[in-house]
C-alpha cells in the first residue's frame, strides 16, 4: 500500500486481487460498503443521494455519519462528501465544511488497482479538528474491537 500525504489531502493506493466488477460492487452497494467499512447504512447509494450510516464507537454508543454521494461512474469512479470524524453524538455538523472522498478503479493484470483520495482537510475548523482526533481515538478502539470480534467468530 502506498501513501501520499500533502497538507490538504490523503491519497492511498491498493492492489486488490479481485475483478473490477467485484470491487465496484463492494463500493457501490451500500450493504457491502457498510459490511467492510463497519457501519450500517439506511439507503442505497445514488448520485446526489444522502445516506445515513450508524457506527458504534467505543464508550460512546451509536453515532450517525451522513454521506452525500457525488459521482458514480460504473466500475470507474465513485465519490462522496462527509464530515471527517464528525462522530460526536447530538452535534449538528450540517453547516460545517465536508471532505471529499474519491475512489478510482483501474483494471490491471492481477486484479484491480484502487486509489482513494480524501481532500479538503484545510477547510475543517481548527477546533473541530482537535475534537475530531479525540473522537477518532475512541473510534479506533471500537474498530479494533470489531476486527477482533470478526476474527474470533
Amino acid at each position, binding site marked *: 500500500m502506498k501513501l501520499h500525504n500533502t497538507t490538504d489531502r490523503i491519497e492511498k493506493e491498493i492492489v486488490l486481487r479481485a475483478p473490477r466488477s467485484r470491487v465496484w460492487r463492494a463500493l457501490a452497494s451500500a450493504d457491502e460498503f457498510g459490511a467492510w*467499512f463497519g457501519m450500517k447504512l439506511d439507503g442505497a447509494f445514488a448520485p446526489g443521494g444522502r445516506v445515513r450510516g450508524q457506527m458504534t464507537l467505543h464508550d460512546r454508543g451509536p453515532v450517525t455519519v451522513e454521506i452525500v454521494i457525488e459521482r458514480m461512474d460504473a466500475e470507474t469512479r465513485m465519490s462522496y462528501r462527509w464530515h471527517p470524524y464528525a462522530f460526536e453524538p447530538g452535534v449538528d455538523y450540517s453547516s460545517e465544511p465536508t471532505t471529499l472522498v474519491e475512489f478510482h478503479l483501474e483494471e490491471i493484470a492481477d486484479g484491480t488497482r484502487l486509489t482513494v483520495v480524501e481532500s479538503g482537510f*484545510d477547510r475543517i475548523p481548527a*477546533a473541530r479538528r482537535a475534537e475530531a*482526533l479525540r473522537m477518532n481515538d475512541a473510534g479506533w478502539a471500537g474498530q479494533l474491537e470489531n476486527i477482533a470480534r470478526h476474527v474470533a467468530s
Partner: protein
Amino acid sequence: MSLHSAGWRDVSRAAPVFAALGDQTRLALVARMSSDGPLSITQLTAGSAVTRQAITKHLGILASAGLVSDRRQGRERIWELELEQMEAARRYLDHVSKRWDAALDRLKQFVEE
C-alpha cells in the same frame, strides 16, 4: 503503537500549519530551509522570482503559524524552521491516514475472500 499516540493537542496546533502551507511560495521556502538550514532573507530571495518584500510577507505568515522563527544576526535576520510544529502537522495526517489503511485492509479481505 498506542491508539492515543497522536493527541488532540497535535491537531489543534496543526490547523494553522495546514493553512500556512497552502501556498507554493511558502512551501518552497519551507523546503529550502529544510534542505539548507537557517537562511537570511537575502539568501531566501536569491534565485527566486518573488520579491524580497513578498518573501518577507510569506515568512510572516509562516511565523504566525509557528512554522519558522527569526533571530537577529548582525544586520540581518536569520530564518529557520520550527521542526516541532512541522512534526505535529505530520502526526495529524498520519493519524487520519491510518484510518484509511485499516479500512482498505478490511476491503481487501472482503473482496478477495
